[in-house]
Structures are given as C-alpha cells and as structure tokens.
C-alpha cells in the first residue's frame, strides 16, 4: 500500500522532535555505528521519514547545509540515516563537500560515507567506506568548483578595463 506523503509542516515537526536530545540521546548508548543505526531506526518517526519521499530528502539536504545542524551530532546522525534511504544525485552532491571538508566526525563519518557511496552507486566494504567516500567526494568537488557570485564575476572584467585604459595612455 502506498504511503500518504507527509506535508512539509509535519516533516518539520517530526524532525524538530527528533532534534530534541531527550528523544535522540539513546544514540550515545551505541558502541558501534551498527548499533547507532539500530537505535536511530527505533526512534519515533524515523521509519516513516525513510519511506515518505522527495520532500523529506529535500528538507534534510537543506538541514545538513546548516552549520548548526552539523554541530548537533545526533541530529546529523538521524538525518544521514534517513538520507541513506534516498540515494539521489542531490544527496550525493550535498554530502560531497562536507565529506571533503571532514565536517562529519564520530559515527557520522561512517554514516555520511555510506549514504554518499550509495547515492553515487559505489559499492564498498563497510570498513573501507570512509576512505573510499573521501576519495570519490574529492573528485566531485574538484569537478564542481563553487559557483562565483555576480560581484566576483564582474570584478576581473573591471580590472581588465582599467589595465587597458592604462596601456592606451602609455602608448600616447
């Protein structure tokens, strides 16, 4: 039976609940990444969010762009575990940069690596996932340099104009 899509408001409410340390602190009881995943899976709403659809993926990708989210280890773990269920191009690109910047530590290094590799369609042994994800993410970041904003794009042009004027003056 197809599950009814959750509204953005409901998704945000569920994520806000999961962000509460009183709700997610059981993740700190995990000794290994495998156990952390088991705990995350048992938290209220996680299974539903893993099965709901692109709206959840979009919300969590946006959430992981926020530095405050990355500072909350357990919320990041939950987000990565849910995103592992959405192996899309958007997830691959969103995780590449923070993986290269080594923004994920603790269990999140492993969870991010596994979610990224699945989105990239790369199979790796669990023990090698972090190393391989770093290597592959570097390739993506290198081939997608950060886009320049309008001001940055115009600056070199303005400088060229200035140099040309100067050279014209020298010719005189």
């Amino acid at each position, binding site marked *: 039976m197809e599950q009814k899509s959750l509204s953005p408001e409901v998704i945000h409410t569920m994520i806000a609940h999961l962000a509460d*340390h009183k709700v997610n*602190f*059981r993740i700190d009881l995990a*000794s*290994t990444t495998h156990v952390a995943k*088991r705990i995350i899976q*048992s938290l209220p709403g996680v299974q539903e969010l893993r099965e709901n659809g692109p709206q959840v993926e979009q919300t969590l990708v946006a959430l992981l762009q926020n530095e405050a989210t990355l500072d909350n280890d357990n919320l990041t773990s939950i987000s990565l575990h849910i995103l592992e269920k959405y192996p899309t191009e958007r997830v691959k690109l969103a995780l590449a940069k923070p993986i290269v910047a080594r923004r994920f530590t603790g269990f999140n*290094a492993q969870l991010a690596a596994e979610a990224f590799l699945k989105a990239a369609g790369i199979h790796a042994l669990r023990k090698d996932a972090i190393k391989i994800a770093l290597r592959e993410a570097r390739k993506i970041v290198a081939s997608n340099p950060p886009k320049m904003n309008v001001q940055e794009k115009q600056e070199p042009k303005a400088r060229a104009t200035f140099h040309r004027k100067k050279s014209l003056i020298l010719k005189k």
Partner: protein
Amino acid sequence: MAIYRTSHRRSVSHCHVRPHPVGPCDSREWTRAERQQERALVASLHPNVVEVRAPSRKYNCHGYAFARAHGLFEFPDLFIVDDFSQVPTEEARIGDVLVYEDEEGEFTHSGFVKEVIDGEITKLRSKWGKVAAYVHDPLDVDPSFGTPTRLLRRHRRRRTATAIR
C-alpha cells in the same frame, strides 16, 4: 595512531578522540555539563544501574572489555578469536567477558562478569557507548544491544593483547 595487537600479533583497527579524528571517533571529549546531562538521561531510563566510570567518548564497550579502555573498537572479532575461549554460561566466573549479538549476528555489546550467583550471571560491568561504564543486570540494557549470546574467558598462558606506541 598506536597499533593494538592480539596475542597472535594481529593488528586490530581502532581510533582515538582527537581534533582531526579517524572515523568513527569524535573530535572532542564531553564537557562537564554534557557529562551531567548524559548521566541524568541514562538514570531516567535505567534507574538501577550504578556508574563505575565517568561518561567518555574515548573508548567503547569493546575497547573496555578487550583492550583495557584503550580506544574505540568497532570490530572485536580478532580479540575473540585470538585471546579468548568460549565457555558455557553456567560456568561463568568473575572477570569473564559476556558478548551480546543481534539477530544479524553482529557483536553489539560486551562487558565483564561482575557477579555470579548459583551459576547465573547477575551483574555485569560494561561501558555503554559514549556514556559511562555501569554495573548492571545483564538484561537491563538498551534493546539495541541485542541479547547475551556467548561467554568468553581470556587465555592465561598466551601473551595478552598489547598496545605498541
């Protein structure tokens, strides 16, 4: 990073808390306030456990049970094969290691036998993830820890596992 070897000289991968850690270790230890918060939350769910070591991200249950709290070990398999023998649970002694597994056969938790009454393990001493080490009833743990499946006894005659710096 230090190398930790089993009694058969096999290296067991692990990591340590440091500013730029190797995964899956954290980049810093808990603050005092965070420790207190973790204690309070554990107490709310497991009021009968007794803390014996403070909350720490520096080592996990496997590091505590197999490697003298040396670091965080994700896969204790080599220790189990090289340094221990399995013994029947009804022959449990203080200091033996009880290992937990889940339905997939993954090692999920481990701890030292602390008390045995009439052949039954009644108390365990184990480190719970990134929080404290506790003395507790073997079944008074988070459900994610799975179930106790095998009792291990460390070999006496062989050279024990060592850290090489």
